[in-house]
């Protein structure tokens, strides 16, 4: 089964709930997954389906309580339902919080009115609709809760709710549909299974409120970073990633698309500020440890800027031939292998910081960039891009000014990209009323190699600031 396109065992996947929340689930064989109020299902029931399908959980009376909860108190035992493909797509009109009086009656365009509503009449305007809030609903919260416990299908629950809403018929068709959708999201038991792409991982973290942890990154900023940095499967990229591995995951997915068998030889070298790199988020990735080991190397800032010399390494340890090493016993063997590991790491540091020049520098860090970037850029080949992500424009501004006056950097510019989604329903097309702010900024420039001063006798001391003329700052007439 192709784990890139199909739901497979021992894989992390994204489960999207009706409330548009994201969950990450590891699909272990013969286990069940609980979605809280949205029900629970068996992993085995969804294996083999392509990603992107929406499943409905239904109960036909012979549920068995989910194994996880067998021991737990009966009260919150979430019955495991059967799973079937959801036929009709739920349109979400959930974004319009205010039941704006200037929302259009649906009469403008013949509307694909959702099933539930077709049989109920509605008024053209909400003129005599009294906004009594919850008083209009005669079913008590307990009654609704009971219905959920009896695991009536979401359709049955919603029909009951509509019937007991006193002035439902006074609502315009539009606000009826909104009301139904809100109820659906509350009681419907369906979920969608998606491939754990880098964008989905980011959305999961945003949903969880980890915005600060990912430096307020957005999908559009990350997509732009990957293209501006000319990321390719065969490139070797130097990177700093303060988001706990999210940036590295974006790089790996663009370079290898989750394919553990990829032949491409690209590498991501992660420089970390702490003693050990924090790439926790990679635990969700479906790359094998072997693959990560081969394509992702980590090195501390200190080791990168103050690497050991060859003599230092060789003077402190000389590896034994294999058989001899294997012949060692007990404490001696442990300490030998510990030293060998140290020896290999030191070698790797040497390799990563030697004459080798990288194909790009990609940064997402809150360290002071104007001092950091020029130093790291010494290891970047000419003509290669440098892209720094920053949550705040002001920090990238300081960096851009520094690089602007340094002849090794060509045309540093600060870029912003913002995506604004629309409520995509015919007859009521408009941008979402509210959305997450922010999304960060990018600094983009190219590493270049300044020309040596052209030597000629009568060359007056070429006023270097003049050399900067074309490259230089703009004249400002006060």
């Amino acid at each position: 089964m192709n784990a890139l396109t199909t739901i497979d065992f021992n894989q992390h996947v994204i489960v999207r709930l009706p409330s548009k929340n994201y969950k990450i689930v590891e699909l272990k064989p013969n286990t069940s997954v609980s979605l809280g109020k949205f029900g629970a299902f068996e992993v085995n029931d969804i294996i083999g389906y392509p990603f992107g399908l929406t499943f409905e959980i239904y109960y036909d009376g012979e549920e068995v309580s989910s194994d996880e909860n067998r021991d737990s108190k009966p009260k919150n035992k979430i019955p495991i339902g059967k799973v079937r493909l959801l036929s009709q797509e739920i349109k979400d009109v959930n974004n319009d919080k205010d039941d704006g009086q200037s929302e259009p009656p649906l009469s403008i365009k013949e509307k694909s009115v959702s099933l539930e509503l077709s049989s109920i009449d509605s008024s053209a305007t909400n003129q005599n609709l009294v906004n009594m809030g919850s008083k209009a609903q005669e079913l008590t919260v307990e009654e609704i809760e009971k219905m959920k416990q009896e695991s009536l299908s979401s359709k049955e629950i919603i029909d009951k709710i509509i019937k007991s809403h006193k002035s439902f018929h006074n609502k315009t068709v539009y606000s009826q549909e909104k009301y139904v959708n809100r109820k659906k999201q509350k009681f419907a038991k369906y979920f969608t299974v998606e491939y754990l792409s880098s964008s989905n991982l980011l959305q999961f973290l945003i949903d969880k409120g980890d915005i600060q942890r990912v430096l307020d990154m957005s999908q559009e900023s990350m997509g732009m970073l990957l293209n501006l940095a000319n990321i390719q499967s065969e490139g070797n990229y130097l990177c700093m990633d303060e988001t706990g591995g999210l940036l590295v995951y974006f790089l790996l997915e663009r370079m290898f698309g989750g394919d553990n068998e990829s032949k491409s030889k690209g590498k991501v070298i992660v420089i970390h500020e702490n003693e050990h790199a924090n790439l926790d988020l990679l635990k969700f990735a479906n790359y094998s440890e072997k693959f990560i080991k081969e394509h992702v190397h980590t090195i501390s800032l200190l080791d990168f800027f103050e690497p050991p010399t060859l003599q230092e390494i060789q003077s402190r340890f000389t590896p034994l031939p294999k058989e001899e090493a294997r012949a060692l016993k007990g404490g001696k063997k442990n300490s030998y292998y510990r030293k060998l590991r140290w020896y290999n790491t030191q070698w790797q540091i040497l390799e990563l910081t030697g004459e080798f020049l990288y194909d790009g520098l990609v940064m997402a860090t809150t360290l002071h960039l104007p001092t950091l970037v020029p130093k790291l850029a010494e290891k970047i080949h000419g003509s290669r891009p440098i892209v720094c992500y920053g949550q705040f424009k002001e920090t990238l501004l300081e960096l851009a000014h520094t690089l602007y006056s340094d002849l090794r950097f060509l045309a540093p510019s600060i870029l912003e990209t913002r995506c604004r989604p629309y409520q995509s329903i015919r007859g009521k097309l408009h941008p979402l009323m509210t959305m997450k702010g922010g999304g960060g900024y990018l600094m983009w420039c190219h590493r270049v190699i300044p020309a040596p001063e052209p030597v000629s006798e009568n060359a007056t001391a070429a006023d270097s600031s003049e050399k900067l003329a074309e490259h230089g700052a703009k004249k400002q007439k006060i």
Partner: protein
Amino acid sequence: MSTNCFSGYKDLIKEGDLTLIWVSRDNIKPVRMHSEEVFNTRYGSFPHKDIIGKPYGSQIAIRTKGSNKFAFVHVLQPTPELWTLSLPHRTQIVYTPDSSYIMQRLNCSPHSRVIEAGTGSGSFSHAFARSVGHLFSFEFHHIRYEQALEEFKEHGLIDDNVTITHRDVCQGGFLIKKGDTTSYEFGNNETAASLNANVVFLDLPAPWDAIPHLDSVISVDEKVGLCCFSPCIEQVDKTLDVLEKYGWTDVEMVEIQGRQYESRRQMVRSLNDALERLRDIKRHKLQGVERRKRMFNNTIDSNDEKVGKRNEDGVPLTEKAKFNPFGKGSRIKEGDSNYKWKEVTKMEAEIKSHTSYLTFAFKVVNRSRDDEKVNEILRSTEK
């Protein structure tokens, strides 16, 4: 010219290489290196032989004729983003904020098999070619097809992972059969290319006419992502209608707004300096008044007149006051160290306020699973 000069990384600039010569932000020219040729600019000309052999990214400096000033250019290895910057603003260009978002949202990677119609300026084609498994590009305008084919060949894309076909996909769909005007090389008994696309990008005046043809060319056992790129909202409305009819789901339209800021400086002009300048002006006016009074009462004291002309430290006093903390009246270069500056960001004078609306949709043709395979796996997990 088979090697794809847009992918892979080159160290030194060689004879025959296609390079991008950066003269200025708005003047980037594609130039193929021939040692006997010369690259001419307003500032002077750069013989190719001075460039060949240097590492990519080198700045090449020459002395401008006459003055002792220098002119210089930078020689870069082409990338899709630099290529887009070098294109004149003629037909529809898909700019980097849009193309990069679309590629990210549709999870473009080596696993992707992409359909693109129309080819247009070819700027997006280069970005796709860099990252995806294979790109099938369709162009309905005859001349543009020829130009794009020529360009893709020159850039080594055709021998790599790009196929371009001359076709109005709204009429003729996406099937590539033997005998069609296409760059696709058919295997000996292959009569039609199996596109098996899992990413589709439609930049057409009427995408609703092309969508129905997709079912015969998209991959059936995986989720397929589609993006329609349309400038007018009415096009979005018609597209949404057809997408729903042909079973495309998770439909969402978005707009991408890209902005670029210049890093500039604004002079810090303190209140105290401003007050001191006014005091200075006031003092001078009073001195002037006294001098005129004295001249009015007693015209003989000539040195007084001259003396009046000097300030405290003996420097001849011009009519205007001396204290000029903000350099009023002279051209100050931004960042001039004699003054205090505040770093500021300045938006471009003219911005791209709209490119197109991006309508995304997804489709899984085969919504079932292979029960045998599943049972096989289930049995293996029970052992």
